[in-house]
Each structure stands twice: as structure tokens, then as C-alpha cells.
């Protein structure tokens, strides 16, 4: 087993790590870096609970290998808010009641951030299509769609940008 040295930026902070090839990104983020907001659920890339952004692209941290993040910028739910200021997507999820047990919420929010960066004004159908791979067992999705559409409007009119900083 060869160890892979890598430099990676996680939520804006540079890290120099050495990882074995078979270490998954979720193991790296949770066990090495303590980013416990990255949730492990289905472990087969279906549910999206472990969604994080690698260079702004959403991936399943459960199945992507950690070394793939070398030289890249990884963003997790922990990197979204600025101190006490929630990101507009986070605010919208709170205001629209788009969460219950909250286990899907970090992945759901990160996928939303990626969606809105790519398509700032999605229709409800576009939201449903893009988010199809993020599963929520509690809400029935209706309020999540509403929150995403509201966040899209807020980002369009608000002073902040989708990258949250």
C-alpha cells in the first residue's frame, strides 16, 4: 500500500496530508479533519447525505477516494456560514422548514449551492431534476423545493455571491 502525499484546501484552510489510496473522502473529512457534518448513510452514492463540493462540483464523499482531492478545494457544510451569518441557502432552509431530522440537510444544502452556482434561477422542475439524487425521508421534499427557489431569489437580489465569500 503506497501512501499519497497531498495538499488540499478544505473550507479555505490548507492541509498537507498523507493518505492511503483506499481512504475515501468521507473518512478523510470525518476521521482526519473532524468535519462531522459530512453524513454517512447509504454508502452507495444514491442518497447524497455525504455530498461535498470539490472545486465547486458536488461529489459523493462516500465513494470518491480522498487522494482525488489533492490540489483541490473541498467545501463542506462547515465552510458555508460566515461566523454567525448563515449562507442564504441555509437561511432559506431554516425559514421554509426544509428540514426535520436534519441528517440529509448538509448534503442537501451543498447540492443546492452547486445547483445555484450553475443555474442561478432554476425552475421547480430543474430543481427536482438536479436534486433527484439527494434523498430525504422526512419532509416529502415540498419545502426543500420551496427553500431552494427562495434561496435562488435571495441570491439574485442579495449582496452576497453563491460562493458565500
Amino acid at each position, binding site marked *: 500500500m503506497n501512501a499519497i502525499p497531498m495538499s488540499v484546501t478544505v473550507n479555505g484552510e490548507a492541509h498537507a496530508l498523507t493518505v492511503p489510496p483506499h481512504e475515501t473522502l468521507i473518512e478523510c473529512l470525518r476521521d482526519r479533519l473532524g468535519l462531522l457534518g459530512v453524513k454517512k448513510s447509504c454508502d*452507495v452514492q444514491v442518497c447524497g447525505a455525504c455530498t461535498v463540493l470539490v472545486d465547486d462540483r458536488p461529489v459523493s464523499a462516500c465513494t*470518491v477516494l480522498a487522494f482525488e482531492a489533492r490540489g483541490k478545494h473541498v467545501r463542506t457544510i462547515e465552510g458555508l456560514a460566515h461566523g454567525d451569518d448563515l449562507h442564504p441557502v441555509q437561511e432559506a432552509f431554516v425559514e421554509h422548514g426544509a428540514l426535520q431530522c436534519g441528517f440529509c440537510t448538509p448534503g442537501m444544502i451543498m447540492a443546492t449551492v452547486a445547483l445555484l452556482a450553475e443555474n442561478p434561477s432554476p425552475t421547480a422542475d430543474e430543481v427536482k431534476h438536479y436534486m*433527484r439524487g439527494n434523498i430525504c425521508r422526512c419532509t416529502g421534499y415540498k419545502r426543500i423545493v420551496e427553500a431552494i427557489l427562495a434561496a435562488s431569489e435571495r441570491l439574485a437580489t442579495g449582496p452576497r455571491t453563491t460562493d458565500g465569500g
Partner: protein
Amino acid sequence: MLRPFELCEPASVAEASELLLRHGEAARIYAGGTELILAMKEGLIHYDYLVNVKTVPGLAGVRLDADGSLRIGAATPHRVLERDPSVSERFPAIARMEADVANVRVREVGTLGGNLCFAEPHADPGALLQVFDATVRLERKGGARTIPLERLFVGPFETCLEGDELLTEIVVPPLAPRSAAVYLKFGFLERPSVGVGVAVTLADGHVADARIAVGSVGPVPRRMRDAEARLQDRPVADSEAALAEAGRIAARASDAITDLHGSAEYKEHLVGVLLRRAFQAALAAVAGSERR
């Protein structure tokens, strides 16, 4: 959980081929990893060496040839094909198919070459690309060959790749003028249950060329030439009966199996339904492009 393995990062196709030769069955090409790592995590397969081809220069990317062919590097992620303007303008059926593969995270990471080489029977690209008469370039150290895509698939999870060969490029020739392709799929599980690709070329109110491919239903995606022959040279206005017959032939030829996705009988029925709908949608697409 993933068992340990060694990662090899070749700088060229030749070096990758050498690594495959050296390690034999203990090595496997690793591109996006969305299928491979999943299967390894589940303990279904294991390799001691993964040969990462994403770092090999030139294996990722899309470009249009002078003759209008689309050349797709094997390590190109699905998401690139979904969003690339040249793909959506010249090959809209491919862009639409790609936009519906698995979920957005898998599409960001998974590659077209990886999808074809893994040869999971329940998959989309293998069927649609066949109606374009797509070819694949297979390279090894000191040699290369180009074969029709349909010959790549040998069985479930099995391709004709030699031990030291890599798929490096997928070439999709353009359809003739007055043509359109459509891919329709059906299913309610995570992977598709039935997929039908159709390409139609019209001339003088007749079907000048009809190509049909069926995927996900049987062990491999395949062209349905006997079914195509039923539609060939038919007047467009009078294709209903021929379509039904073509659907029956394609259904029989699809080697449908009964599994969690449904019974063979139902899948055969769906082949007929999707074939007719795809054909009619393709006709409408040709008509639509001519109105513009």
C-alpha cells in the same frame, strides 16, 4: 469497506498498458471509479493495483472533428458531455441521455469510458451510442485498434478488451442530414430497466435509414438490425404496423431477463412501447428541425 490496494499513476497510455500487463488480473484501470470503487467497497471484486488513467494527458475532453464526428476522450465525465455546447447542439440526444445518467454526483465523477468498460448491463450510454454507429479506440503498448462499439460488449461486466488494452476514445459520427436520434428509458429503481435508442434518417417521405439499439434489458446493449429492416424504406406516413412489428422483433431479440427490475415479458413489452415512442419522437424532431 475498501480493502487496501496500490495506486499506479502512469504518465502515458503505453505505461498504463505496461502496468496492466505486469500485474495481470490483479490490476484494473481506474477512471471515475463510480462503478469500480462501489463494487470493491461491497467486496464483490478486488484488485491489488488500480491504474489511474485520469492523470494520463489527452484522455479527457470532447472535440468536433472536421467531418462533424464527436471525439470523446474515454476519461471524460458524463457531466461534461451533458453540458458541452457542441454536444447539445450537434448531438442533443447524447446530451439529454447524459443528463439523466444516475445522479449529478455520479455524473460529475463517472466517465463515459469507465461506464462502457464496466459493462454494467443496466446502463444508458452503451445503447444510445450504438445508433450513431459509434466506434471505440482500444490501445495497448505498441498498437491500437478501432472497433464498432457494439463489439465491445461481450457479456454482463465483460468486454472484448485484452488484458493490456485500454479504451482511449469514443468516436461518434454525425447522422446524415434530415436525421434525429432519441433515447428513451424506463425504470423505477436507481438503474434503468429498459433503454431504447433510435436514429432515423428521412428522404422523400420515406425512412432512408433506421437504427435501433436496446439496452438494460438483456446481458448487453445491442443493435436490432432485423427490427431496423422492418422500418427501412417504409413511407413515414405508413409506419405504424411496421413499428409494431419492429417492436416485436426487437423485444424477442433483446434477450430479456427477469430480475428485480421486472419480468422478461414486461420488459419485452416495454421495448416495443419505447421503440415506437422514440421513433415517433425522432420523426417529430426531424420535422421540427426542418420547420426552424
